[in-house]
């Protein structure tokens, strides 16, 4: 990395932290550098994973300015306020103070990236109707310069009726000082004038707003006029005399579609402005331009896309191994150490088997999860996700969806929760629900631990051609998830969610260098969430499971070992203790349910414990198989390989393991996902359906694999 990532020393960061005065909403097109700027201004404050084009939850942070501080609220990236997609609706609601308890912001910072000034100006014109003090942050001026485009900032400010414009080269951090001082004085600024693109619309809307006795803002009226059949249109007709509304509509739009007329007026103006403020400068010919051109042709682009996916799988498996071995060894060492410290009694067992084996078996997967998230975040930050949507649109049409569904599905490989929120970019409700139902099938990072454990334990690490067999099996599991998701979408779009062919309208960002700070902040954020889960939910479950497996204690004095067994006396004792523990008794009750899949009561208990959060399964297995393990079976994989039924048959046969993995590939074991489906669909019907459907499909899949496999092997 070069000087681009050296942070500017910010005097405020060493000075006094001030309480924020005033709230400013940050808004702009998707991929306009909004998040990067937001992170720069608010410093190392956590964000909650800003997934493709979506600001998940309300991000806010305090920007420390000279002598004051302002609270910034990051809004979803949008192209227009038309309210077509959920994101556009959210942005409008927040700005108008309709989102929950939040008051209206005191100011707007509109982020426009210099290469896409044309589309940025359209949104800005709509935002000027809000009548809130407004400023413009012109980002990526350095990227535009490299492409031979220079923007005359003063001329632009004039064209906007005096709205201040602050150029920032986000990667270099130049221009931040001026931006901060403008931001500090933003709340004292006058509200913007009528947008120059269509003053007649603004004036007519202001008139109707005045006639509504203050119940409607000017933007409400405009939305009602532009979309007369939508909710805003109905509200307008309730508040204002319908005749007056019709008169205004006829004058403004004649008989043309209002949204099209708005686009024509605003873009006619944007075109003139861009012509006046954009200067061609000599482009610094990038050596990579020709390569980029070739790579973005149909076939090379598609091949490259699949190659990059294969690279991710290889990386997750091979690069993470040394780190994982290190964590594994550390956990085993800690276990031995605690046994040495606390002895072999309940306390020693609690620390070594409960805490260290439980939590350690999950934390070990942190390196893989970091690598996986790093790839997804890089794809997002370089604008590649949108490119992938473009390449895959035609394939997605086969299952009745559009390329827009590719973005949430790809990010589901990291985690289904933010990706289900990312479906807000899909305008059509039916397509959105079909995508939401498909998303949990994608192999998320929480499934990796169980896959990695089972593959490492039961799939030989031989090479098949250029690839390693373990990697191929993992790739197969990913394909299984993709197949499950697409088949589900296809079924839904042909039955309950049948509807017209979805549109596919998407702006494609240029390929950009990722910003190190943004990538690191997002990555740290995901790791934090993962470790927090490991430290709280998983810790508690591990402890509870340990206690259920450890108590009640059996009186060993009357225990007679079975001389015909090939097991050591110690192991027989431990197994007998386990079988009569609370957990053993409960496991025995559910065992018949999962017996057709070849699972013993320990696997069944672990799977049931894993329904709230699937990472827990490994932790529970870690605990269950630690109690009563041979001392030389240090790792969980070895313990699983040694596990047997009472009659000495192996529990973990290859068909059973494959079936178990199929179960994991298709089952919805994640309370957070169920909750987010409930929230995003605003009903209980869909989350209940998704959970039931996926559990049944997973069970049947595991059953078929186990039966067929057992017959063959």
């Amino acid at each position, binding site marked *: 990395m070069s000087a681009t990532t050296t942070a500017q020393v910010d005097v405020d960061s060493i000075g006094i932290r001030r309480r924020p005065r005033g709230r400013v909403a940050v808004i702009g097109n998707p991929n306009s550098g909004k998040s990067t700027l937001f992170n720069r201004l608010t410093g190392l404050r956590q964000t909650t994973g800003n997934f493709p084009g979506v600001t998940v939850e309300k991000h806010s942070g305090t920007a420390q300015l000279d002598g004051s501080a302002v609270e910034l609220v990051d809004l979803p990236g949008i192209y227009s306020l038309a309210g077509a997609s959920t994101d556009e609706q959210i942005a409008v609601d927040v700005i108008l103070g309709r989102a929950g308890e939040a008051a209206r912001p005191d100011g707007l910072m509109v982020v426009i990236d210099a290469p896409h000034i*044309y589309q940025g100006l359209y949104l800005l014109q709509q935002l000027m109707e809000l009548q809130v003090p407004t400023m413009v942050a012109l980002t990526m001026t350095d990227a535009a310069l490299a492409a031979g485009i220079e923007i005359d900032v003063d001329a632009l400010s004039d064209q906007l009726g005096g709205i201040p414009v602050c150029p920032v080269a986000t990667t270099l951090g130049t221009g931040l000082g001026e931006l901060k001082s403008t931001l500090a004085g933003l709340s004292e600024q006058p509200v913007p004038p009528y947008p120059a693109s269509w003053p007649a619309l603004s004036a007519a809307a202001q008139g109707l707003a005045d006639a509504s006795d203050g119940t409607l803002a000017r933007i409400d009226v405009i939305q009602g006029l532009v979309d007369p059949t939508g909710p805003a249109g109905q509200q307008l007709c309730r508040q204002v005399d319908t005749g007056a509304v019709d008169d205004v509509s006829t004058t403004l739009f004649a008989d043309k579609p209002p949204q*099209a007329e708005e686009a024509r007026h605003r873009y006619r103006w944007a075109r003139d402005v861009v012509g006046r403020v954009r200067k061609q400068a000599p482009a610094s010919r990038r050596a990579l331009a020709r390569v980029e051109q070739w790579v973005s042709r*149909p076939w090379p682009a598609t091949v490259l896309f699949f190659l990059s996916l294969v690279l991710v799988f290889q990386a997750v498996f091979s690069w993470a191994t040394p780190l994982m071995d290190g964590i594994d060894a550390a956990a085993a060492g800690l276990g031995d150490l605690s046994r040495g410290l606390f002895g072999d009694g309940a306390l020693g067992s609690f620390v070594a088997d409960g805490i260290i084996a439980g939590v350690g078996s999950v934390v070990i997967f942190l390196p893989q999860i970091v690598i996986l998230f790093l790839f997804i975040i890089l794809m997002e930050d370089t604008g590649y996700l949108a490119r992938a*949507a473009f390449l895959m*649109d035609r394939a997605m049409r086969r299952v009745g969806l559009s390329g827009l569904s590719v973005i949430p599905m790809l990010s589901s490989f990291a985690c289904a929760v933010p990706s289900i929120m990312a479906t807000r970019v899909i305008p059509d409700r039916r397509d959105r629900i079909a995508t939401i139902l498909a998303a949990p099938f994608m192999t998320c990072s929480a499934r990796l631990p169980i896959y990695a454990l089972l593959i490492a334990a039961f799939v030989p690490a031989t090479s098949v051609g250029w690839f390693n067999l373990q990697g191929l099996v993992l790739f197969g599991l990913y394909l299984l998830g993709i197949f499950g998701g697409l088949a589900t979408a296809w079924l839904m779009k042909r039955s309950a969610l049948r509807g017209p062919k979805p*549109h596919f309208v998407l*702006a494609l960002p240029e390929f950009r260098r990722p910003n190190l700070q943004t990538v690191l902040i997002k990555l740290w954020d995901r790791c934090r969430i993962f470790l927090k889960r490991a430290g709280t939910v998983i810790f508690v479950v591990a402890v509870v499971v340990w206690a259920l497996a450890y108590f009640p204690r059996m009186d060993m004095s009357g225990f007679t070992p079975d001389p015909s067994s090939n097991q050591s006396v110690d192991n027989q004792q431990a197994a007998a203790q386990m079988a009569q523990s609370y957990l053993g008794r409960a496991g025995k009750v559910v065992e018949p349910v999962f017996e057709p899949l070849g699972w013993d009561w320990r696997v069944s208990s672990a799977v049931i414990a894993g329904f709230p959060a699937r990472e827990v399964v490994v932790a529970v297995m870690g605990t269950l198989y630690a109690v009563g393990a041979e001392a030389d079976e240090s790792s969980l994989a070895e313990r699983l390989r040694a596990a047997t039924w009472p009659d000495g048959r192996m529990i973990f046969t290859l068909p059973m393991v494959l079936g178990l993995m199929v179960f994991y590939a298709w089952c919805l074991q994640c309370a957070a996902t169920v909750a987010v489906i409930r929230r995003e669909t605003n009903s209980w019907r869909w989350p209940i359906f998704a959970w039931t459907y996926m559990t049944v499909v997973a069970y049947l899949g595991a059953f078929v694999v186990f039966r067929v496999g057992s017959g063959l092997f």
Partner: protein
Amino acid sequence: MTLAELRNGMRADITAMNASDPGIIRLMTLGLVEGVAVEFRNAAIGGDPIEVSVFGASVSVRLDQARQIEVSPLEP
């Protein structure tokens, strides 16, 4: 001639579009309106969707919508 018939590197002015189609209206909010010059950039496999740029900003357009957009080619 329609937008669907543009080939590599060709530039054209949009002359007319069917503004009653909701998909076309979405394209209009991204800046494809009558009177702007568009340039053909790329296509996905099978030539659908296509990528056109307007003022340097790329937009993805499906062929069935591109067929509803009339253009007149510009001399290179």
